[in-house]
């Protein structure tokens, strides 16, 4: 029996559908987002941006711009401490004469209005020396390629390791066993190179933005569109050593992991606030978001995979080239996670030599996006894994079951440490999802369509992808939960004091449900503190990487249990029964066996005071998640147009906390530059200039409201031994296996391998030999 198994079975709230606490605010337009918020005396910051992918500023003159009425400050590289740098390792001066991508800031401007700031930008005179650019991760490693950081990186290879995520030392190379022996023992071996490097943009509806106010020389108040205020604080603190950032957030208009660090915006607003002594707002336009803000990583692999006669991977050898663009801001963490996820998917493989190189290129800096490195690697790796399965004519569903990590397997995670999978076994989940999709019936074999129209012009095929992640237990987080007796009457409010930003997942409400469940109070009586960093909340790293369930749930639950222990102790002299025979009921403590003995919390807590419980989660990576995606595509053989017509997402999330928010996490896998990055979604970059051409929402193609496939889900509810409520977070991974599943389905539909992302009509017609 696990330590959590005794209590919490007959749930009032857990697993039930509850109205989200901010639901009414959202449907009435009252929910506040950053751009709805004003700070008195606030002015506006904008950036002059480089029109070139790689250039040096030869001369810059800001006199005319400074003379414009309403302009408060113009900063160039000459005005900023050159030791203040962005990225890890610190690499890019906040403002630099060396410009490394189209959109790289040349100058920061603060003015009374956005319009005046834009006018001032037009008046800044700059002379550029244009340099050759490195626009592709693979080529950037050549000796003759343009060098982005010659004084810091050799051959544009970014220093491996991000100490926060890899405290034991950098991890970039997955090595174990003996690969040569592994290949010798393999039955089927394939080798190829695949790219997933169109670096699509997660494009949250709300563009990124911040407001910064200087409160004393090195203390700054930040209001931001971040989903993780602590991460913002952490990365901003690297940028300006000695500065202290207090961060507050509002409702965040979509993030998908992408709006977290916001370091470039924070630095711009901070420097302008220092220069003007006014609060400064920097809110990107949609064009800036699409052209100059963080995209997905670029990913290319050159790899050899061997599987044995049972379809189990026996050896993996190769190199993963990761393209970070012009700034690597803790991208090493994504490299570690990518390698770790490869290990989860091929967990039975004893022989690994999977190296990686993180490349700086003259493209828009890549940032974090849902899938976090694992998706970008898997988009390539899965295609080759499946080619090896095809060589042995293995059913991919059977092979995934055999290869995916299970209880007792070891794997290396992003910290470079070998972990043992605990409590998870996804084979039943995979089979349940396959059955619901009718895989056995629909899958006709590799390269075979499931359906051909009578005229032969349209063909359908099915595909299946798998992914998982062990980040659901990452980071150390803490919470206070306080009981505040009502002023009038004998009830109380429960205040969950934890840094929880709402960016769409509903976790503020879900965590309130956990508190309501343990303290046995109505959900409506639970409040949650406003989100923000450690000044008014204890520390927590944000709801990224599916952390919101275990790593936020455990601290809240522990804090409630701490309160319960305290309350039982306080009640002992009054109830005169042992604490283990007490229960919490009706905002009071009651004897289980002598129910007439009851005392309210209000009577137990000294008047005007509150009672505080404390809980924490300590990082562990032993509970990986898993998501399997089944889908069917239809391909028009004349036009080459492919689309997904039906899909099913399979998951075992453990105990369901909230069924509707879980379902929408699964549906969310269609968005955030995931599934459609295999069909049509891409950042189109003009080759010679390095300029992003898909810089508005007309050019940047995505799926309109009325073009969604039919969607189903298959959800198992194993009771995992993870934390009090036996669940595991899954939001990170729900879209991460969609892209390779689409490629596989297209290949099966048309009977020819398609491996070029995205599989646009041109790509498909080429594969069919029609172009």
């Amino acid at each position: 029996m696990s330590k959590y198994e005794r209590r919490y079975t007959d749930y009032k709230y857990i697993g039930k559908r509850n109205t989200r606490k901010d639901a009414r605010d959202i449907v009435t337009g009252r929910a506040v987002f950053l751009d709805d918020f004003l700070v008195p005396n606030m002015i506006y910051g904008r950036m002059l941006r480089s029109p070139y992918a790689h250039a040096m500023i030869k001369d810059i003159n800001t006199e005319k711009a400074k003379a414009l009425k309403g302009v408060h400050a113009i900063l160039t590289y000459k005005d900023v401490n050159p030791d203040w740098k962005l990225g890890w390792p610190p690499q890019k001066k906040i403002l630099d004469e060396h410009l490394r991508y189209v959109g790289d800031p040349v100058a920061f401007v603060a003015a009374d209005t956005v319009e005046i700031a834009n006018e001032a930008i037009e008046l800044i005179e700059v002379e550029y020396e244009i340099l050759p650019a490195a626009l592709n991760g693979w080529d950037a490693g050549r000796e003759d390629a343009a060098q982005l950081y010659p004084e810091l990186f050799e051959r544009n290879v970014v220093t491996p390791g991000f100490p926060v995520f890899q405290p034991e030392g950098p991890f970039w190379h997955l090595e174990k066993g003996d690969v040569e022996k592994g290949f010798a023992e393999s039955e089927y071996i394939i080798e190829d190179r695949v790219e997933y490097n169109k670096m699509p943009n997660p494009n949250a509806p709300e563009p990124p933005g911040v407001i910064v106010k200087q409160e004393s020389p090195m203390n700054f108040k930040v209001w931001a569109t971040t989903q993780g205020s602590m991460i913002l604080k952490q990365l901003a603190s690297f940028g300006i050593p000695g500065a202290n950032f207090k961060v507050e957030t509002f409702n965040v208009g979509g993030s998908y992991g992408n709006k977290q660090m916001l370091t470039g915006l924070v630095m711009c607003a901070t420097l302008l606030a220092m220069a003007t002594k006014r609060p400064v707002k920097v809110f990107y336009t949609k064009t800036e978001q699409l052209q100059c803000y963080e995209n997905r990583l670029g990913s290319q692999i050159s790899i050899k995979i061997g599987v044995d006669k049972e379809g189990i991977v026996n050896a993996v050898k190769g190199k993963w080239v990761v393209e970070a663009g012009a700034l690597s801001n803790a991208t090493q963490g994504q490299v570690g996670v990518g390698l770790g996820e490869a290990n989860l998917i091929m967990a039975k493989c004893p022989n690994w030599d999977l190296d990686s190189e993180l490349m700086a290129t003259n493209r828009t800096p890549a940032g974090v996006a849902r899938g976090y490195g694992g998706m970008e690697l898997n988009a390539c790796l899965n295609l080759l894994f499946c080619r090896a399965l095809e060589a042995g004519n293995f059913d991919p569903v059977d092979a995934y079951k055999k290869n995916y990590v299970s209880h007792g397997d070891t794997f290396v995670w992003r910290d470079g440490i070998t972990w043992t999978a605990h409590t998870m076994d996804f084979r039943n989940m995979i089979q349940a999802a396959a059955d619901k999709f009718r895989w056995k019936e629909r899958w006709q074999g590799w390269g075979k369509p499931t359906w051909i129209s009578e005229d032969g012009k349209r063909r359908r095929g099915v595909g299946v992808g798998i992914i998982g992640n062990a980040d659901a237990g990452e980071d150390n987080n803490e919470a206070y939960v306080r009981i505040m007796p009502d002023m009038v009457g004998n009830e109380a409010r429960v205040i969950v004091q934890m840094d929880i930003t709402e960016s769409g997942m509903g976790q503020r409400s879900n965590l309130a449900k956990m508190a309501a469940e343990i303290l046995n109070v109505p959900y409506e009586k639970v409040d949650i503190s406003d989100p923000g960093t450690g000044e008014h909340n204890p520390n927590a790293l944000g709801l990224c990487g599916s952390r919101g369930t275990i790593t936020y749930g455990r601290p809240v639950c522990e804090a409630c249990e701490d309160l319960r222990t305290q309350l039982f102790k306080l009640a002992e002299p009054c109830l005169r029964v042992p604490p283990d025979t007490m229960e919490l009921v009706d905002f009071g403590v009651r004897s289980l066996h002598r129910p007439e003995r009851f005392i309210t919390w209000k009577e137990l807590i000294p008047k005007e005071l509150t009672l505080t419980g404390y809980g924490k989660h300590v990082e562990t990576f032993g509970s990986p998640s898993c998501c399997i995606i089944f889908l069917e595509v239809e391909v028009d053989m004349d036009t080459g147009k492919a689309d997904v017509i039906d899909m099913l997402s399979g998951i075992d999330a453990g105990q369901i906390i909230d069924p509707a928010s879980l379902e929408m996490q699964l549906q969310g896998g269609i968005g955030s530059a995931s599934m459609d990055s295999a069909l049509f979604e891409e950042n189109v970059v003009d080759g010679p200039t390095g300029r992003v051409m898909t810089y508005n929402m007309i050019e940047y193609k995505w799926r309109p409201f009325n073009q969604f496939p039919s969607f189903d889900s298959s959800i198992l509810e194993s009771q995992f031994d993870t934390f009090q409520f036996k669940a595991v977070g899954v939001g990170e991974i729900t879209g991460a296996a969609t892209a390779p599943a689409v490629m596989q389905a297209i290949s099966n539909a048309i009977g020819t391998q398609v491996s070029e992302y995205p599989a646009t009509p041109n790509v498909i017609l080429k594969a069919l030999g029609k172009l």
Partner: protein
Amino acid sequence: MTIDDVAVTVNGREYEFSVGTRFGQIPPAETLAETLRGRLGLTGSKIACNEGSCGCCTVIMNGEAVTSCMLLTVDCDGRDITTIEGLEDPATGRLDPIQQAFIDRYAFQCGYCTPGIIMTTKALLDKNPIPTQEQIGEALSGNYCRCISQYHVFEAIKDVADAARAERR
């Protein structure tokens, strides 16, 4: 032609603005979205793409769903505008049935695009209370939602349409 002032009715209340470039006046280039958000404090509709392609700024003008970032306020003289803030009954606090259905069906995730989606839906259902799935999809094809609330939005609108159908019988 010179326009000196502009009068619009927003959520039942009439506002008159002076047009010009002096401090406090509405400049000719000001969009309806900016006026609603910046001057009237009606921040429910959002300015996201600012080019009419995301639908986050949708309001209803004379019965039609419009993207308010694509309209100049000076061109809205005499128009009757409803924003998301105008749907709830101010006296009773009763929500519009669409808003209630969005709550009941959990038809949002981050909620940033939701006011625009609700206003497009309102304009549709006011004209066509029992639309088909295709008509709903067509009406909402200009509303961008990246979190994926689409499936739940369809369910919510179907609930409202089903209630209208039941009422007719």
